[in-house]
């Protein structure tokens, strides 16, 4: 052996040695048996070594940065708990936004942990595999830090305590759950496109900014600290998302039509799911940041527009129905809040009608639609409440077979008519809220015909019984505590009691 001489590796070379050099071409078992899942989708990869590592983190650096972030985050959470930070929020109605987050989003972070582990094992290229493993760890981090952040709220407010149980059962939570089940049951390249690109890159700001800025505006120091702490993880996830798309498009021209169809599908899936965030932003935050429409303009129309212009050199175009989604940004939050108001008896958070001041804000933010289509509805419901005839919709709604949201959306260009599409598959008729959802079904009817639709399941007797009380019990949703209007709820009574004591103490 030659005697050692002092040499210095550049960072890129060193990182390559530390990661890609670990892999080997198996010979006792066939490579296709070791990596059985990365070819069936038809994506052609001719040279994995062309993968550009979007970030070069060795494991020791990962532990160091992440450990440091965790130390700081948990110090804030401890202090928040010790000082009863929940007393400092804008209003107890705000807490309902994080109920939606814990029951709807946190379980998806866990699913992401699992499926990035799947990719971290089953993608043949070492570069993306290591990146996926770190993301699997990050996603577990997000699930656990969210639970730990919200744990304190659970001690003082209702609606949080049964979050995993509800996630697997409650009607509107099947919207985010089926979204992620769809991604995890797809092949690895579709998952990358769905989650790393369409969701983490194109749409993530529409989830993250509303919730985290919403937390900041409403005095929720714990959640906002979590949000800041997660930001640098998200930045890594975004760079992975864009790198994967470019890599697939650069590797082979046959990949373009496959990727385009996935981009179309996952844009539309994301748009429908984010309707829940739209409603949270426009109706559930006592102190508002900006309207959903404004957020959509900034984060999708402008930022997404620039992104797709950049990607046009690969032949990728703006997702199909992006124009319709932009049109729907004028309507979706109002229509969704109306659905939850009508079905408050089966919602795991509290509802309310917007106040005069809030309606004035909505008029200002939605000059084309709010006064014309939605204000009259809310005012009528307000009058009914005043007469002691609060409106409850006691009929179970028809759900869209694809997005699983009740069919309450209107026709593009005609907000007075409910949109309705259907198609036949294997002798059965399936129903959809939109052309986008119908297209998705028709591309994969065998998959989407399997959907576990909560309303169908109730009718089939699989959800505890035929009465509302049976279903609520099966949901572990405490009637009169977790559900119904904010006014009169135990949350409200407790909040008002705290406020009156604080006034006395201060006075």
């Amino acid at each position, binding site marked *: *052996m030659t005697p050692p*001489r*002092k040499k*210095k590796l550049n960072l890129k070379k060193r990182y390559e040695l530390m*990661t890609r*050099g*670990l892999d*080997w071409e*198996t010979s*006792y078992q066939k490579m296709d048996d*070791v990596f059985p899942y990365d070819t*069936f989708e038809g994506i052609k990869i001719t040279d994995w070594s062309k993968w550009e590592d979007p970030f070069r983190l060795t*494991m020791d650096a*990962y*532990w160091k940065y992440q*450990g440091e972030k*965790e*130390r700081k985050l948990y110090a804030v959470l401890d202090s928040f708990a010790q000082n009863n930070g929940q*007393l400092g929020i804008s209003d107890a109605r705000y807490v309902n936004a994080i109920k939606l987050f814990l029951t709807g989003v946190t379980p998806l972070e*866990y*699913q992401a*942990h*699992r*499926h990035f*582990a799947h990719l*971290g*094992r089953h993608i043949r290229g070492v570069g993306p595999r*290591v990146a996926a*493993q*770190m993301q*699997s*760890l990050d996603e*577990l981090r997000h*699930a*656990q*830090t969210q*639970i*730990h952040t919200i*744990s304190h709220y*659970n*001690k*003082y407010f*209702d609606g*949080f*305590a049964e979050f*995993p*149980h509800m*996630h*697997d*059962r409650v009607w509107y939570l*099947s919207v985010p*759950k089926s979204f992620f*089940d769809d991604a995890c*049951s797809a092949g*690895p390249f579709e998952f990358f496109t769905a989650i790393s690109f369409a969701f983490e890159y194109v749409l993530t700001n529409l989830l993250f900014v509303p919730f985290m800025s919403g937390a900041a505006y409403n005095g929720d120091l714990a959640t906002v600290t979590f949000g800041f702490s997660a930001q640098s993880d998200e930045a890594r996830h975004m760079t992975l998302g864009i790198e994967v798309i470019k890599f697939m498009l650069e590797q082979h021209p046959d990949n373009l039509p496959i990727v385009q169809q996935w981009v179309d599908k996952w844009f539309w899936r994301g748009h429908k799911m984010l309707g829940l965030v739209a409603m949270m932003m426009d109706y559930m935050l006592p102190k508002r940041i900006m309207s959903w429409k404004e957020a959509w303009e900034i984060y999708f129309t402008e930022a997404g527009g620039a992104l797709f212009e950049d990607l046009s050199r690969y032949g990728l175009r703006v997702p199909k129905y992006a124009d319709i989604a932009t049109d729907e940004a004028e309507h979706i939050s109002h229509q969704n809040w109306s659905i939850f108001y009508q079905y408050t008896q089966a919602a795991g958070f509290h509802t309310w009608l917007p106040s005069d001041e809030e309606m004035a804000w909505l008029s200002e933010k939605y000059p084309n639609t709010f006064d014309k289509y939605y204000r009259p509805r809310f005012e009528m419901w307000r009058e009914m409440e005043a007469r002691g005839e609060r409106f409850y919709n006691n009929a179970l709604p028809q759900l869209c077979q694809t997005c699983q949201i009740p069919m309450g959306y209107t026709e593009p260009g005609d907000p007075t008519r409910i949109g309705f599409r259907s198609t036949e598959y294997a002798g059965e008729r399936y129903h959809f809220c939109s052309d986008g959802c119908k297209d998705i079904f028709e591309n994969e009817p065998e998959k989407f015909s*399997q959907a*576990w639709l909560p309303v169908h399941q109730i009718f089939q007797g699989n959800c505890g019984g035929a009465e509302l009380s049976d279903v609520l019990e099966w949901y572990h949703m405490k009637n009169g505590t977790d559900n119904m209007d904010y006014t009169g709820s135990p949350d409200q009574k407790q909040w008002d009691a*705290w406020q009156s*004591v604080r006034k006395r*103490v201060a006075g």
Partner: protein
Amino acid sequence: MSIDIKTVNVEPKRQTFAHVARRLGSDKPASRYEEGVFDVQATKHFHYRPLWGPEHWHFDEGRTAIGMEDWYLFKDPRQLYYGTYTIARANMHQTTDHNFAFEEKRDMLANIDPAWREMIVGYLIPLRHYEWGANMNACSISDAGYGTAITSAAIFTAGDRLGIAQILSRIGIVLGGGDGELLDEAKQQWMEADAWQGVRKAVEDSLVLKDWFEALLAQFLVMDGMIYPLVYNHFDTEGQRHGAAALSMLCEFMVDWSAEHNRWVDAVVKVAAKESDENQALLSDWYGTWRDTMTEALAPLASMVMADAAEAALRDVHQQLDDRAAKLGLSI
């Protein structure tokens, strides 16, 4: 002087989440491990069969033949959740960094007998590929396993194995004077040298196992349970006699890590074996098969490093592992 700080008296309505309280037996304060792990995985009403394997749901108990009434009996005795995991590893690695700096400054690896340096390239550096195989198995377990208790600990292990592979790579780089030539040499040994083919075959065979629990037992209990004491104890002791004390310092992470990791592995295997006679029989069967495979696979490697002392070293490793497995409830 004592002062009276005026605060609003707020009483909690509950101490923890309902599913956690059900597991603790009553509503009482829960640890962050318990809240961050219990029941976090979805268990019911999945929507679509995976395109990549329609015989199971993506989270499915049927991905192993091991049966459990409750998958959260696999509690991690280390109580690791993401925060405690990253902080613990960052601390451990700080010592490793310190040791590397100390040795590089004094050029300590240069003092090892040249012949033994060659031996290190032959027995230690190829282990970075073994660790990468372990990383792949850990990812598989996190992917296919059932319940957050298993999947979270498995992805931490995946991170650990990548980290260890990188420490071994670093040793190879320092030993080679700063570039990657020795890593290439070591890879060639892994691919071609007779001493390694039994181990490489066992690793590749483990990568195509369909049952994640078998992969867990094969990788974490048997393969690690033989390779770690053989390499970091017996081979290391042999190295001391060739002036390789400096190497021991650089391998400290692996020694400490392995002791910690075994606590988790033992807890998991013990709980699974105790659950039912069927589990116990299956685990014992897997154990016997993999132990015999590994005993045979390691013989040429051991004799390369330890010559005449190899047989005794392997016998010792074998015996220690059998004793450990018996304590976990397996039939030997």
